[in-house]
């Protein structure tokens, strides 16, 4: 790959600025969650989060340096490797809180299910690029990509990690809606889905059933699963228009809020920075998503478009589902808030995703050699 001056000129500074802005807000927020805590290990989470951001930036750079068409050539191989990692987790992974999600890689614990989000997008983008059709796709055309999605979906569901598994399905559906599906096929899928939901209910773990039940009626179990949502709503609401101020969120500092640094980070932020702060964050996310769509629209080729759409869909749905759940309008499933939730794997993978977006963005004018 020759260096092309246009690569630098076309570098997507806007994308970098938005992502850095959101990550910085996330960092301040994690500092706040650890500020008033008894556990020493929580107090210094923000230091670790800085490490993750730096590592993420390295991966981001790597992801935009190599031409995405080159990466895409190995998309199936990369996807295969990530599935192997999931299988390793299945047999040798270690568990915390009853869920086996992590493997140790050179002293770091790493969550392959996060990585699969990206590799699935790459694999599906390649598949749909190779099997382009001028008319709408029918069910039989979707069999192979569905299997590609189903394999990691089942492995992750077994861990169990309902949230991440669902995200994979959502990525799949977002992409097939984007490429266009025949209405009959859609109707059939919807019908099968409707039949499967009651069947799936029996496959859910008790705590997962609890969460869905408490979503329907949070007051039914104020001490258990509903407690999270009630406290989250109190935290967010009590922030009011301008918030209680940095490090002054009583809900957070009093430890009423559960999972403060992971799934419920947004509640912490909204309590301390109020409606205005929340809006700033939402606008930043909106710009990120719209920017991603713009990149998709102007991509050099169809493969680039599909990659950008997949990544943007991933970020969009994670933001909507996470914030929706802490606001009490969606059931509580463990989905992190991109760039704000504490977590190394999620941060590094998302940064890599953004790197790929930049990749597609800055190569839009370059002819293929």
């Amino acid at each position, binding site marked *: 790959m020759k260096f092309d001056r246009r690569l630098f000129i076309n570098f997507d500074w806007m994308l970098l600025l938005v992502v850095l802005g959101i990550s910085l807000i996330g960092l301040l927020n994690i500092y706040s969650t650890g500020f*008033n805590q*008894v*556990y*020493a*290990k929580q107090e210094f989470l923000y230091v670790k989060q800085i490490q993750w951001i730096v590592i993420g930036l390295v991966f981001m750079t790597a992801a935009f340096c190599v031409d995405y068409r080159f990466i895409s050539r190995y998309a199936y191989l990369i996807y295969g490797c990530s599935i192997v990692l999931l299988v390793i987790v299945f047999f040798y992974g270690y568990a*915390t*809180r009853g869920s086996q999600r992590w493997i140790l890689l050179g002293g770091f614990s790493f969550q392959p299910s996060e990585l699969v989000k990206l590799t699935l997008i790459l694999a599906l983008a390649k598949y749909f690029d190779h099997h382009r059709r*001028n008319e709408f796709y029918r069910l039989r055309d979707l069999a192979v990509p569905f299997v590609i999605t189903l394999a990691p979906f089942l492995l992750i569901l077994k861990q169990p990690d309902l949230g991440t598994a669902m995200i994979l399905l959502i990525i799949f559906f977002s992409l097939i809606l*984007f490429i*266009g599906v025949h209405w009959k096929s859609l109707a059939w899928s919807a019908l099968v889905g409707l039949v499967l939901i009651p069947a799936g209910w029996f496959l859910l773990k008790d705590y997962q059933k609890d969460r869905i039940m408490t979503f329907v009626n949070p007051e039914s179990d*104020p*001490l258990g699963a509903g*407690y999270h949502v*009630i*406290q989250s*709503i*109190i*935290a*967010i*609401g*009590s*922030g*009011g*228009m301008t918030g209680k101020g940095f490090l002054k969120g*009583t*809900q957070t*500092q*009093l*430890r*009423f809020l559960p999972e403060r640094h992971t799934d419920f980070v947004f509640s912490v932020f*909204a*309590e301390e920075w*109020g*409606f205005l702060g*929340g*809006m700033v964050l*939402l606008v930043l*996310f*909106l710009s990120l*998503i*719209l920017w991603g*769509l713009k990149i*998709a*629209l102007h991509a*050099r*080729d*169809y*493969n680039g*478009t599909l990659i950008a*759409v997949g990544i943007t869909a991933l970020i*969009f749905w994670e*933001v*909507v589902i996470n*914030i*929706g759940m802490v*606001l*009490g*309008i969606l059931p509580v499933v463990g989905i992190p808030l991109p760039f704000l939730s504490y977590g190394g794997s999620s941060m590094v993978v998302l940064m890599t995703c953004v790197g790929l977006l930049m990749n597609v963005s800055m190569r839009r004018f370059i*002819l*293929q050699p």
Partner: protein
Amino acid sequence: MTEIRNQLNGHETSALHRRFKIMLVIVVAALSLLALRMWYLQVIEGEELKQKSENNSIRIRKIKPMRGLIMDTHREVLVDSQCSFDVLFVPGRTRNIQSVFDQLGSLYQDASLNFDREVFTPGRLRPFVPIRLERNVSREKLAIVETHTLDLPGVTVDVVPVRQYLGGEMMAHLIGYTGEISPEELDKDESETYTSGDLIGKSGIEKYLDPYLRGKSGIEQVEINVLGKEVRVLGKEDPEPGYNVVLTIDALLQKVAWEALAGKPGAVVAMDPRDGSVLALVSSPAYDPTLFNGGISQEDWKKLSGDPFHPMEDRAISGQYPPGSTYKMIVAAAALQEGLITPETSFVCNGSYELGNRTYRCWHKGGHGRISLHRAIVQSCDVYFYNVGKLVGVDKLAEYARRFGLGAPTGIDLPREKNGMIPTREWKQMRYKEPWQIGETISLSIGQGYNLVTPLQLVTAYSALANGGVVWRPRLIKQIEAVDGQVIKSFAPERKSVVPVSTGVIEQLKKALWGVVNEEGGTGRAAQRKDADVAGKTGTSQVISLPNNEKTRKSKYIPSRFRDHALFTCFAPVHNPEIAIAVVAENAGHGGSAAAPIARKILDAYFDRKKSPGKKPPVVISDHRMEHQGLLH
């Protein structure tokens, strides 16, 4: 060509644009929905929710569980829990900390409010982390605090279960003690089930069985009004009391052993050779475990850790002593089994043994004359065993010692057990980079030299001899049961190995051990009992000529530190043994005169009670029994 293929045709482009428009609409709609919801919660409902959060309208209170009881083998309660009341203070609930304290002081009507002022230095103050002002307050003070909650913002009362160590010092090492979980322990906690303020076992059984004993905290969710008063309990999850533990320990024997040691440094272990159950496990001197309740004071800690007799050390499982003449049984067993000697083999003892240019003395300066195995054991003739040990050799000796369970942890269910030491040629080469000297084998044959055993290892080895060869893993815990008596886990006796010694040899040795206690000239006659045939062996281990006389060991026993340790180990009745005992009395002189009488007292207690089983054991500690449960409700 590829270029063209990748370009989008006009039809596709317009379709793409349409889809992007749809996506745009979805994105904007979804994020607007979130924004609307935030507007509703933060701006419309904001004031109300702010009120709720300010009042902390819902407050979660942790209810600490009752820790499980610990009982002896006859279900006599050794450790119990009772409630104590602590006064807490949450700095973030008031603006003027000093006025709260002045108020509290005047309500108490004495200004003796003794709290640690250091925690109030600005840097260390965490507004919402409660500070424990006073522990275990009296009922009067409790009433004052409870009735004046309005005048004392931030001051609350916490109900804390406190351990009652009914056995006191005599059980201190065995039972251990509890304390508030430390930040280090919290960091190490992998199960993530402990939270700060929890009680955790710090040593002994309390530590070893902590997961069973601790129980599960309950939660109470209380609605509180603006004035800080509880309005109603919204929900409650009762705490689950910890499981009760039944030990194999016999409190009576424990007490007799403790009293026989009379506070002097030493250790006693008694075991049932039929199944390895530990009947008594005493280390002396000891400490008062209640000192640790609610955190030990600096002063007490200094006193304990600075004591030259090391009261915190559990000598029964981590005291390492040269076995002295008690080791001769291993030497004899090895020699007989290997066919190096027969019971008739005799040597002449004229008071000393020459090897090269060194002289090794027998304890009996006059010498024992020509002597064979049986009498050599009875009279504990050193010269006889110098000869036998030389025949066997260091590595063969080590092999037999190991098979009897010496020189390795026994695997008892207690933390911090020590290994002991059984030397071999290879070990010395590795450790000192020097070859083994034959003279060292000579010292070894009478249990001096590098050899080190713990009292628990010694009793395990003699139990194996007593029961015909089975080495048991010492069994200290009988079972763990729920409050309703349902057995959660029972601990079956565990056979570790069988010693490679024939029954004939074992019988021969047992006969000799019986002679030690009962025959004319035997060294262990102080343990003789008419109605129970006791078999035993004395031992006297030299402190001064220890080759590995490390500095620490030296400085440890400043007074009388050059005196020998007295050892005695025995079992009874000789033909069907029910109890084996090992006694170590530090710096007390001869095994026969200093240690054997201690064993005798324990044997008396054991067999006397057996004779009159209807008699209740003397109230060793107190008469608390099973009725002490669920005190919280």
